[in-house]
């Protein structure tokens, strides 16, 4: 499994953020987009075409799966498809986060990042 994970890294921004969005609970597409936009404070805004294209590939790679389809009262009860992380998806997310934090440590050791910059 380690090799499979390694193959996928580094993740693109979109994939990484989608994984993050699904760490706390299942979400449907629009909620994922909103969560990302909020969390990154507008830095990354995914359009639907890009989002679902990415989700399609993530499903193919086994990172996410369809959870349920249920009505969302916030959306006039439209029936929406909800997605969630797979075990594998969790592992990949953690691996990427670890990789990124190592890179940040490297930068810090050279004083590139001074107090929260």
């Amino acid at each position, binding site marked *: 499994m380690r090799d499979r994970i390694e193959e996928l890294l580094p993740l693109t921004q979109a994939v990484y953020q989608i994984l993050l969005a699904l760490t706390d609970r299942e979400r449907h*597409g*629009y909620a994922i987009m909103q969560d990302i936009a909020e969390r990154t404070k507008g830095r990354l805004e995914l*359009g*639907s*075409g890009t989002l*679902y294209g990415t*989700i*399609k590939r993530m499903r193919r790679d086994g990172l996410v799966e369809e959870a349920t389809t249920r009505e969302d009262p916030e*959306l006039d009860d439209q029936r929406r498809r909800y997605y969630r992380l797979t075990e594998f998806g969790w592992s990949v997310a953690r691996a990427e986060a670890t990789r990124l934090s190592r890179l940040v440590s490297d930068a810090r050791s050279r004083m590139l990042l001074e107090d929260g910059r």
Partner: protein
Amino acid sequence: MRLHWLLVRLLLPERFRREYGRELRYDFELRAGSARYSGARGRLLLWTRELADLSRAAVRERPPAVAETLRAVVLDVTLGARSLRRRRGLALGASGVVALGIGVATAGYAALDAVLLEPLPYPEPHELVVVYNHGVFEGGSRWLVEHSREQLREFESSIDAFEAVGAFTAGRADLIGAVEPSSVMRVRASPPLLEMLGARPAIGRLFGGDDRATDVALLPRGAWQSRWGGAEDVIGRRLRLGVDSYTIIGVLDDDFAVQGLDAEVITPLPADGEGEFRVLARLAQGVPVDVAREELRAFYRSRDGIVGDSRSPDPAYRFPLISLHAREVHRVRSSVLALTGATGLVLLIAYANATSLLLVSALRRREELATRMALGAGRLRIARMLLAEGVAVAVAGGGVGVLVGDLLLRVIVSQQPGGIPRLDQVRLDPEAVAFAFAISLAVGVAAGLVTVWGSVRGERTSGLAGRDAGGSRRAARLRASLIAAEVALAVVLLAGAGLLVRTLLELHEVELGFDGSNLLVLELRLSSDTYPEPAEQHAFLAELEREMLSRNAVEAFAVGSAVPLGRSRGAVWVDFFPDDVPPGFDGSSPPDFPGFGTREGEYTANSVTVSRSYFDALDMPLLWGRLAEPAAPDAEEREVVISERMAENLWGGRQAIGEAFRLFDRRLTVVGIVRDVRFGDVRIDYLPTIYFPLERQRLDRTLHVMLTTRGQPGDFAAEARQAVWTVDPVLPIRSLATMDELRGRWIAEPRFYSLLIGWLALSAMVLAATGLYAVLSHAIRQRTREIGIRMALGATRRGVVGLVVRQGLATAAIGLVAGALVAGWFTQWLEGLLFRVSPGDPGNMLGAVLLLVAVALAAVARPAARAAGLDPKVALRAE
């Protein structure tokens, strides 16, 4: 939303669509509804982002080969744009021309969509129909607008095709209880009608169901905001309509309009009793209008024994059932189609012009193209390059064209005459922009293809050698046909414009018979509640007269039940004493009295009740006799004044004085004859009119007060209102207008149409002229050597000029002939808009042709001068 789905279908592969299509749609709807993307800028941002995102997804989701091709196309167009930058003059010229054409066409499409194509704003609007009644009279049957209550019940029980039947009446009523007393459009509706038309309460509730109360009222949103100031606590307040009082129980979430009438107050239909109503029905799901119509006809036939024919060649507009949409757009349909057709013509002209320019440019680059081919570029590659240039020019032009279209639409909306349904709602929506984009693309591809066809054949060797007989002959023919086409289309537009301008002039010139330049007209209605007796009515008028005349600005005061050019009219049928029948009476009415039926043995006349000062106020001379003296309200003998036309028709003129006729058992004696004036539409002939003296009579409830003002009548309007309310503070003023404004109403529509077509014709002429000029300039350049030779061989400058002019005119001539033929067909569509000029008027056609000949001569002038100015020695050495 359908535009979005269209884009998704266009751009994304099917498998992806199937899997994620619904979510794409939901997400877009949610985003569109969010605050961030509201307003015009927000929407632009939304669509731009969505388009970019979908395009990226389109490329990513496709198999690599396809993605590669798409990328290649984008590259081609980018290169095309870059190469055009080197030839900026041409690029700007062609783009500008395309911008004009696309702008006009987009505006035309948007207007067509808003007026004719857009479905009515009701639930399932295609199921709604207007139901006509059937009446049998001596001499045949007629279709009627109104139905009895009993008939309504029968519809509900016996017509299977009707899923629901709604009834209403509409009329003006005097409203008291809002911000100020006024006259409003009041609709009485049955609960099924409210449901059919999708009325929903925003505050409070609707009437209907178990609630049988009839003294309740609903307010449409617009009226609530304008007349009650949008007050939140309006529920429970009372209002008065005429003598009746109502409690407001609800405010609708939107405006409420039925058959073109904008309701301002809605009350329930009375529960029982007599009454006649207009009826709309909703057809059962899946039942076509034809089938329902047949069922209704059978119903009438079984009830009446016969049934009238449907009376119309137009399948969408047949009695007794006409679709609601068809009914509303019927009147303007052919005019709007004609105008949209005209915008299409301008687009074609622009296309021909742009193509011609691109062609000329490609020919000038023959050497460059030949070099490329010698260096290995295949014909296909060259063709792709030229095609891409065409597309780049067109798309750039299209972008500007959208702005032009938006500007045009603003002008259209601001100038609109008001009789055209929903024209005030037209705007450049995403659909129109998509249309513009699609058309630009089509124009670009078409122009590119023609350019390729006209220039790429046989280029390989001959281009390098510098001379090229075969290819350029074909190109020359092509250019000539393009120009001829432009000229032809310009003739068509000019012919149309000419007719409309003539109509406008005729309307202005129509003799009105009176002078209304200083008149202000107020329409008032005295309710029988406040003014039950004639004495009270006349007391009010006397006081109003005193009040008005006390103001400086007012010179004279007159009252009548109708004013010339106004909308009210009353018809009466009079007959004659057996031993006193006028020599001119042939047994029935004058045949051209519109809107009122004729009756055997009776004479139809317009009837107006007037004060003594009426004729003076209108400057209508009394031709013979004197004014009529008022009689007691129930006197059996009365004096009247009649109009010139009536006197001539019946008694041959002044002999009418002293003659008498009969109306409702009263003997009316003619004591005076007055000059004709136009009541109603300026387009109809003078109506035979009987003038009754106003004094002492029980008055029509609608009165027109005419004030002759010193200075501009419009300036007195506000003061006039105050003067009325000084005498009676709760008297609603139905309308207030100067005589010029009244007249303007009749002219507004023709003026609007001539403005539009005039503008289109002007664009067409400019385009045709510049096209001709460009082509001839190029031709002269091509034939410089030839001209040099001719001059060296002794041709005079005159001869050379003649040569050029003949060449230019020959091309134009073909276009003129073709154009004249097409114009003959096109102008028929305008028939409904014309007045005193026929569509095929030869003078008009000749004028259009001559005008274009003049334009063509102007276009050839400079090239001809240039040709004449050529120095033979220089010319001979030219390439």
